[in-house]
């Protein structure tokens, strides 16, 4: 059985087979050669894993982000944030952080944020004389905030895998996301002051009001999504559907930027990315069932209890594991592969499942831009025309900032859980 559950997946993963095949092969080998259960369980679990209403939020949020990202929303948000913080030194960098955080509250798709915000901000920072490596590191790393600030696709997937409430996870992600944004903004201002670049402009109230007026419809999306969820008006799935309709109406009728064909094209892109993600969710569901019926999580938990590992050490070990995995795997695949093993262990250790969900998300968010293979690095390279070595050089300080934030989020659960208590009252 060890061969089916561990050797087969690891070998197939290393030789580059698709993740869904890795999981399905492990399941098939285990069922055919090592277990005596009806093979129909494969179909039942494949179907059952995606026959779940909460998962609808995944394609809905992707679609809302697709619609909002195709028009001038990014430019409008940039103008709004720049209008507010333009007087501080390093304001373009701070604007990049602020706009990414707001955009993340609409789409929750990190690579899209790097591409969309980067197209606006990278040329502006170049013109203003920002160091190229600094610009590259900043734009490549800020997109990771998006998967921490709700709505977050990895959090939905974690919620499904760990049987945690997505609304609670979203509420718990707010403060950690804002904390990371503030830490990066503070670093940007410090670097700008030390190296004397990015001088601010005097605050212009009329310009700010004009930018606010132009961005008001774009700012409405996060208000509807987050206000709806935390106000108890919508479930996360419903909030995502409302956000889709809102995004379609705003971009097509108010901004007059999208045609009906482009709205359907955005839906087609959503179908494609949903196919990529949910086939893994389906196969991971069978794999998780297999682990559970073979009592693997229980055995690992018992082993760790026998070792008498402290909670502090356990979290440290899990962080190292997730950071390593995040360097090579996308967050959704990593969550689906590891949650069946890790969640029972941390719950047995008395760690809150929601807090752990945020820790997992931040870890894997770092993997999105961590050298050498973070996907956002390649997005910045291909879409924004930044050199790979420049990105690698520029990204190091931002990796350090995220690691400090990760340490705080891991060992101070209140940073996550206070948001949940404050916004949901429980």
């Amino acid at each position, binding site marked *: 059985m060890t061969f089916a559950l561990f050797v087969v997946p690891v070998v197939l993963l290393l030789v*580059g087979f698709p993740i869904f095949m890795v999981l399905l092969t492990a399941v098939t080998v285990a069922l055919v050669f090592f277990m005596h259960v009806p093979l129909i369980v494969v179909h039942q679990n494949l179907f059952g894993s995606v026959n779940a209403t909460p998962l609808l939020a995944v394609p809905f949020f992707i679609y809302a982000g697709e619609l909002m990202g195709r028009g001038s929303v990014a430019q409008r948000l940039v103008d709004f944030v720049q209008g507010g913080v333009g007087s501080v030194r390093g304001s373009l960098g701070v604007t990049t952080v602020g706009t990414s955080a707001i955009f993340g509250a609409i789409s929750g798709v990190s690579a899209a944020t790097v591409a969309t915000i980067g197209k606006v901000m990278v040329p502006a920072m170049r013109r203003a004389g920002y160091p190229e490596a600094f610009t590259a590191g900043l734009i490549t790393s800020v997109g990771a905030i998006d998967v921490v600030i709700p709505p977050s696709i990895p959090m939905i997937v974690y919620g499904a895998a760990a049987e945690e409430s997505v609304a609670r996870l979203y509420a718990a992600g707010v403060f950690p996301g804002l904390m990371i944004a503030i830490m990066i903004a503070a670093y940007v201002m410090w670097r700008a002051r030390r190296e004397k670049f990015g001088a601010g402009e005097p605050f212009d109230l009329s310009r700010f009001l004009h930018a606010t007026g132009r961005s008001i419809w774009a700012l409405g999306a996060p208000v509807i999504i987050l206000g709806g969820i935390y106000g108890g008006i*919508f479930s996360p799935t419903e909030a995502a559907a409302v956000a889709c309709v809102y995004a379609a109406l705003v971009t097509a009728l108010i901004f007059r930027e999208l045609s009906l064909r482009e709205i359907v094209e955005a839906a087609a892109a959503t179908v494609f990315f949903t196919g990529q993600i949910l086939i893994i969710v389906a196969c991971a569901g069978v794999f998780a069932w297999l682990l559970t019926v073979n009592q693997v999580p229980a055995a690992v938990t018992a082993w760790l209890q026998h070792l008498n590992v402290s909670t502090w050490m356990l979290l440290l070990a899990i962080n190292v594991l997730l950071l390593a995995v995040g360097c090579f795997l996308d967050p959704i695949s990593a969550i689906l592969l590891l949650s069946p093993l890790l969640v029972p262990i941390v719950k047995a250790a008395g760690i809150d499942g929601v807090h752990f969900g945020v820790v997992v998300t931040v870890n894997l968010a770092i993997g999105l831009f961590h050298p050498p293979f973070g996907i956002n690095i390649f997005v910045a390279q291909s879409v924004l025309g930044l050199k790979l070595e420049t990105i690698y050089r520029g990204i190091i300080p931002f990796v350090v900032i995220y690691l400090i934030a990760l340490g705080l989020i891991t060992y101070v659960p209140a940073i996550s859980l206070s948001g949940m208590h404050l916004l949901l009252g429980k």
Partner: protein
Amino acid sequence: MIDRQLDRIARAIEWILALAFILAVLLNFTNVVGRYLFGIALLGADEVEVFIMVAMTFLGAVVVTQRNEHLRMDVLVRLMPKWARLVLRIAEQVLLMLLAGFVLKQSYFYAGQMLRIGRTSDMAGIPMWIPHGLVALGFTLILLLAGWRLFTVITRRDVVHAAPESGQVRE
């Protein structure tokens, strides 16, 4: 020629699913509006939406398979020589055919059972062989695609055609 036809079929599946997906969004939105403004709900709308998502999962995977953009960890593969990648791609297609055939058999059997007993969904009354049959249909198409790709990789020695393109990760 066949590749071009397969691209067209994949595109057609993608657009049909896109229209179905827009329907799912509108159904969900209508339910929210109906509940808050008129105190009514579309019974069974949730089931229709979820079944559309099931279609997006298993038929969407067909589109992803055709474009060779499944998510994978291809760090080591990129470092391998061409002959090793060719061997791996052949092995991948053979394994995919075996897996798709295995799942297809189970799903076909299950959907057939649903058809025989006439089971319908609780609220919308949709015959359950349809959503379950989508799993069988998806893996049938994946089986055929893997078969065609195996043929092209072997006959053309075309490692690029079958090599991982490293799926676009969205997060």
